[in-house]
């Protein structure tokens, strides 16, 4: 959805058409859900947190500054909700006890052999992500899983662009150390 269309939809919602909010949910649900999943590593928590993000965005849509991009605002809400969740749940469970298996959770693309390798890599990266601080994790996730620019990251995280770059770099450093260690085993 382009930004002009987005603004129209937001205006429609603000004028009382709540159903129009579904268009925004459809446009961003994958990204917000995946952000929550990469941050928590828990499928069920990610689903709850993503829902909470949209509910809060709806409740506070009247505060949204329409001169700014909607996605950075939504990501900010999402990250705040995730941060609160991580603070409350110090254990930061990575091994979920939900109903679907990991295999079911990834989009079924490519050949099965590639899938196995991809799952192994994914698992290792997820485990290494768990080991780095939440601040670095969110920087790495935004940059490489969501391809967010450093300027937008700065906007989302409430820091300067250079601080965002530094967090990404340090996150990569930690990930590199962790992966080297695991691959060496």
């Amino acid at each position, binding site marked *: 959805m382009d930004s002009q269309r987005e603004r129209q939809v937001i205006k429609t919602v*603000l*004028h*009382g058409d*709540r*159903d129009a*909010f*579904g268009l925004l*949910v*459809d446009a961003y*649900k*994958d990204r917000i*859900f*995946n952000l929550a*999943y990469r941050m928590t590593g828990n*499928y069920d928590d*990610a*689903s709850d947190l*993503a*829902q909470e993000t*949209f*509910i*809060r965005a*709806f*409740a*506070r849509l*009247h*505060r*949204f*500054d329409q001169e700014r991009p909607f996605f950075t*605002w939504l990501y*900010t*809400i999402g990250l*705040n*909700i995730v941060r609160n969740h991580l603070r409350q749940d110090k254990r930061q469970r990575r091994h979920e006890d939900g109903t679907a298996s990991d295999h*079911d*959770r*990834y*989009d079924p*693309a490519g050949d099965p052999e590639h899938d196995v390798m*991809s799952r192994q*890599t*994914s698992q290792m*990266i997820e485990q290494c992500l768990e080991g780095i601080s939440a601040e670095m994790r969110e920087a*790495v996730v935004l940059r*490489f*899983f969501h391809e967010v620019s450093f300027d937008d990251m*700065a906007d989302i*995280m*409430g*820091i*300067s662009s250079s601080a965002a770059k530094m967090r*990404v*770099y340090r996150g*990569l*450093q930690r*990930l*590199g150390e962790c*992966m080297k260690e695991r691959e060496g085993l």
Partner: protein
Amino acid sequence: MDRYRDIIERMEGIPPVRLPEHFTETVMRRVHAAGEKSITVTVREYCAHHGVLGALRTVIARNIEGTDCPLSFFVTGAFYMIMGIVLMVGLGEVGGDETVVQMVRFQTQMTLVSSVLLIALGVLMASDGPASIRVGKFGLLAYVCLVIVNSLVLQAAFRISIADTFTVIFAGTGMMMGAYLAVKIDHYQRHTMHRGA
């Protein structure tokens, strides 16, 4: 970053996780339920689109959210500016002990320096936004140091009991303003992190 190209490529190669089914429907059910429960949502929607009420709501919201942080710096700076000018004009012809006169005149300079510092911080935060919060905090620290140093100098210069009261009031007021501005910066920082969240 090139050092970590391999890790980056591996991360970018990880496929997205599939959403639970009926995600949008679940969210929309909750959206409707939340909307039905809360009368404030209806009031907000009305206020957001009705001229004066909308403007009033924006002002109140900004005050609550802390987006008026640069304004608070301007206002405090303006207060010091007026006080500095009054002191400059009022104490122009003051006479008496040379040390005391110098100390009294020093107050004018301190007040004007504080004023310029606070207004400059306000301008910086208004123009640079969240990026200048760190500078704002250092500036505020400098202001608090100025207040403390000034009260210590006053304390040392005046040896009469009434001067102690004056020093305490002067320092206390300055510190209270500093605390108020610190709260404003904190709210501003939270607001930019939670913008609208």
